[in-house]
């Protein structure tokens, strides 16, 4: 079998790449290459057409206003602001550079919540100062134009609103975080049943509220957390139900999701403190696999100098 193999080995390579006798490049003449290329241009052109066509057909079957399935996105996740790289807040109170990213992040996030952003009455609706029931705004279509959005006043966040203290407490070593429930179209969170809640949460109970509570992740950190202040609508630490359901980007482009600000006023310095915040509701679940479903945990590392 080895016989003859050496013969056609080397010399033919060059000839294969460019055969000057037959004017062949890589074994084909120019005309042949042209035909081949033409074939593939047409072939791939048709395929691309088919691809775009089927995608368009598929998009026709999908509603503009609500997704077909939501089984992967619900139950909702609970997330915090600021979010910088990792779920960790680490700074030195005396060094403004060290917490600048957090402050900027918070400020950027809260821009939409400023009073001057919520002036247009066509878009915004005053939903009261206290938690009330869901506000259904009809079918998920633009037959009635865009849907109104409940106002959420930045002032409700008090110390964490950034109005009085533009550093959100960071310069005093008392960092604020904002807690929000992930938006899900049509999702109506149900207020929790009384007896399943921690005592602190029960202290300020409302039937129209999804309470939020933060505590040490680990037992041994319990004493390092210190006092935790909650600011939210009507002084409740939770999400009021009148903000639900969410009608989607198209119908409520300026939707303001309800927020709860959490300020840690007495965190132990120079130690990593893990805090877990949970939202409580009948249809808010937690999962071992998804650590951000209905709860999240965040690490504080405040250095004294």
């Amino acid at each position, binding site marked *: *079998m080895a*016989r*003859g193999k050496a013969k*056609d080995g080397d010399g*033919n390579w060059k000839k*294969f790449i460019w*055969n000057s006798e*037959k004017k*062949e490049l*890589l*074994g*084909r003449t120019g005309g*042949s290459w042209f*035909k*081949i290329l033409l*074939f*593939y241009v047409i*072939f*791939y052109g048709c*395929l691309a057409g*088919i*691809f775009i066509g*089927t*995608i368009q057909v*598929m*998009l026709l079957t*999908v509603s503009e*206003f*609500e*997704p*077909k*399935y*939501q089984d*992967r*996105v619900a139950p*909702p*996740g609970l*997330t915090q602001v600021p*979010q910088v*790289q*990792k*779920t960790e807040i680490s700074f030195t109170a005396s060094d403004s550079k060290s917490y600048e990213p957090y402050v900027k992040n918070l400020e950027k996030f809260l821009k939409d919540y400023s009073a001057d952003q919520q002036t247009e009455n066509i878009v915004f609706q005053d939903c009261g100062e206290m938690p009330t029931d869901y506000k259904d705004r009809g079918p998920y279509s633009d037959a009635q134009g865009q849907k109104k959005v409940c106002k959420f006043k930045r002032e409700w966040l008090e110390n964490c609103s950034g109005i009085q203290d533009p550093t959100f407490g960071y310069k005093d070593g008392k960092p604020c975080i904002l807690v*929000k429930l*992930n*938006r*899900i*179209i049509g999702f109506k969170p149900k207020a929790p049943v009384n007896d399943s809640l921690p005592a602190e949460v029960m202290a300020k109970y409302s039937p129209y509220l999804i309470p939020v509570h933060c505590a040490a992740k680990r037992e041994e950190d319990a004493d390092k957390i210190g006092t935790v202040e909650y600011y939210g609508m009507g002084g409740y630490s939770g999400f009021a139900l009148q903000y639900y359901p*969410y009608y*989607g*980007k*198209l119908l*409520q482009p300026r*939707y303001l999701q309800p927020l709860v600000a959490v300020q840690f006023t007495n965190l132990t310095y120079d130690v990593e403190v893990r805090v877990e915040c949970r939202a409580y509701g009948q249809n808010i679940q937690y*999962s071992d*696999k*998804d*650590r*951000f*479903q209905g709860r*999240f945990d965040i690490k504080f590392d405040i250095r004294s100098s």
Partner: protein
Amino acid sequence: KTETGDEEEKYKDLKGNKKKKSEDLKKELDLVSVAKLLFHLGLSSSRAAEILARDGPNSLTPPKATPEIVKFLKQMVGGFSILLWIGAVFSWISFGIQFAQGAESPFDNLYLGVVLALVVILTGIFAYYQEAKSTNIMASFSKMIPQQALVIRDAEKKELPAEQLVVGDIVEIKGGDRIPADIRLISAQGCKVDNSSLTGESEPQSRSCDFTHENPLETKNIAFYSTTCVEGTATGIVINTGDRTVIGRIASLASGVGNEKTPIAIEIEHFVYLVAGVAISIGVLFFIISVSMRYKILDSIIFLIGIIVANVPEGLLATVTVSLSLTAKRMAKKNCLVKNLEAVETLGSTSIICSDKTGTLTQNRMTVAHLWFDNQIYSADTSEDQTTQPFDQSSPSWTALSKIVTLCNRAEFRPGQENLPIMKRVVVGDASETALLKFAEVILGDVMSIRAQNKKVAEIPFNSTNKFQLSIHETDDPNDKRFLLVMKGAPERILERCSTIMINGKEEPLDSEKAEAFQTAYMELGGMGERVLGFCHLYLPENEFPDTYPFDTDSMNFPTSNLCFVGLLSMIDPPRSTVPDAVSKCRSAGIKVIMVTGDHPITAKAIAKSVGIISATSETVEDIAKRLNIPVEQVNRREATAAVVNGMELKDMSLQQLDDILCNHSEIVFARTSPQQKLIIVEGCQRQGAVVAVTGDGVNDSPALKKADIGIAMGIAGSDAAKNAADMVLLDDNFASIVTGVEEGRLIFDNLKKTIAYTLTKNIAELCPFLIYIIASIPMPIGTITILFIDLGTDIIPSVALAYEKAESDIMNRRPRNKKKDRLVNEQLAVYSYLQIGIIQSVGAFVTYFTVYAEQGFLPSTLLGVRVDWENNAINDFEDSYGQEWTKYQRMYLQWTGYTAFFVSITIQQVADLIIRKTRRNSIFQQGLFRNKVIWVGIFSQIGIALILSYVLMAYWFVAVPFAILIWVYDEVRKLFIRRYPGKLQERNFLISRPNDSRRTATPDANPCSLLFFYRHSSLALSQTIQSWSDKHICPVSEGSLIHGCHWLEEKPKKPGGNK
């Protein structure tokens, strides 16, 4: 050329050894004289033990076996395994780095590495198991009952295992024994040995104590290891044991002939290189791209792993092994036992078969073929299972002849075989007598009772000086008191003794005219290569020879001349009835059949003619010379299509001349050849670039068997050495089985091609996701593990199912594949699979992918460029097209759904791919969807496995269905083009298989000239019509070369792109 040089040296070496050996022998002679004294004593046990310790046991060293662990490790690193190992190692490296960096989920890579390693190890174990299984078949085959030898030791006769024999032992042998070592005889009584395992010559040779020749191979006083003693007894002294025996030396010569790679092994290697080349180059290319796109090195490495895994058809090599072993099983059912799995395909690419005559082409028994009486030649039925004879039996001459045939015969049936067909019964007696006995039994019925009624009163057995056999009988007619003298023998000797000849039952004087008629008949029968016997009789006058007459065979007191000549019978070892058909099949399949035999040229030629190896119309140079009445030298050698080459001529030929003969004659018979010459012939054929199959049975054939691309040993007549050297064993010794083997071999090649095309297609659909993931930064469409699910899960059974695909009608009408050009995986196949069907599949799978994401909230436009954020663990409020926010885990969950959907849609489209791969050019409607039931098993298993592995909403199963239909329609259109415009550009563009396929089919519309080629060789009757027809249709010279051979064998390196 150096290779052949080496071989020649080896022969010289062997010859040299023989010389040395004769010197040894002289030394041994002293030993013999001593031994004669010690004849009754033999060796002492202690001395024997000493010698045994010195020389080792008396057995042939088995060929060096590769240690099991080496075999196993070879499977672990062969083929694609290396690539997968690289993938696994990269996974572990990236795991190590990620782990050191404290990343969140480093274990994914660890698992991936483990899975890859597992895949390699499992496929390795599987391949090893398959190989071990096929070697086991052979191991059981070669295992023999330990041979016993009767030895005199310590002055006692002992039964010892032959292995323990040592030089100097005195052994006794008797008829039926296998000779336990090389033995120098010291006494012999009517001893005859069958040296066929050594020389191929099956005629028993007598052995005595006389030293008759310098050459130990020729001398009468040496019996060789592994030959058998046919009759008589002998005592001898062991002169050589184990590997030092003559047979041991030949065996080691055979093992010296290197194992060549089988064509399919080369093809698979080529395929592996091709795929590995594609995998590595795409991998490296995208590694560079991803690095230059500012991906992290670590990420780039992970992409690289993905690309490798996507490109490597992990399950394919296992599938190929399974397909081959399935075919091997199927061939075993058809009496071809394949030792080496890869040899299955070799047979299919065979272009020359060098066949033995005796036993392979013929029935290996003498049979009466012709009779001559009443001045007329009658033909007898020579088929294997004759029960009657059709010729005219009414003539009284025949009655007389039949009586002679019955009575003048010493052969007898072994008792207790009454229920067997006559042809199958075992007979005690020599070949011709057996033939006559069976012939008589078929026509007359119970021969033994006829003989009993005609009591034998005297007999002279055949001997070489008389050249006749004679017996005297009483008649079965109680009123006829005369004795009947019957005689048979060499026709000319019989005729000498006759004065009258029987014509139509009447005795007529034997005049010169009648003697002339006899001569003509004798010449004619002899010219057919048949062994002719003459028969005559004489009723002894009652008055001279009364009842009590004392017949004396020594003094011959009865007349042995002036007899009455009755007739001639001629015998031949007739061809097997299936052989002519098989030979013509070979011809239409473009396979040249060369007969290589030790027999006489005339007999060889006659058999070659009767089986079609030399077709009725073709002539040898000698024939032409005779016809034109000119000297042989003046004949234009190119005109002769056939050649009968004598071994003596071959000896004086240069390699150049041999090549000339092999090249210029399409029908060749080698007669009177020696084993070494067989090897030379095989090498000559291989020089022409042919894939050569060689059949053989004796030990002497083993070098040629080994040298051949595929050696075929005979299962019944074959010696163990031949079976060992061969790649395949024909269990029924029948040439026709080779042809079925060829068909199976071609089928498996076609089917493997289909399997590979099927497997390669989805590689693109697995690869594209990675490329688009890297370039467009979309969420990963399919995971590495999911790819393994396809490659090793859903796709395995369907690809094996393609091995069950029935042959397309032209399979035996095209020429053997040219091993240089007709690759298993060629440009067309790769391009069509990769760039056309593969791309359609990818498009279909991506449509499913986008559908899944769109229906869950991510419209296609949102997906582009999101990769970094999408994969960021810290972002848990990732916004989709509707403004919803997703946590990381929710995104991952969606991504897995995407994997499954992608997987499902590839599976669905692979069903279409499977269906289109069933045929190369015929429409599915022509081939039939339901002929191959296994395909359906494949399809259902595929869908079933996919159902088990996935839990996606059923809706996603149907997204790819339109694309599956598109694939099928597209392929039907392509096939339609191929059928409509054979050989046109379209075909070359799309056809998966050989570009010139259509020319090779023998269907009339495909190409009239190949049809001509086919008929010229198959039918004489048509030749006239064809002649006039071919004058009308001018056939191109290149087609004419079909008939004259070699053109197609030349390795003309066609420009690589010529078949576009």
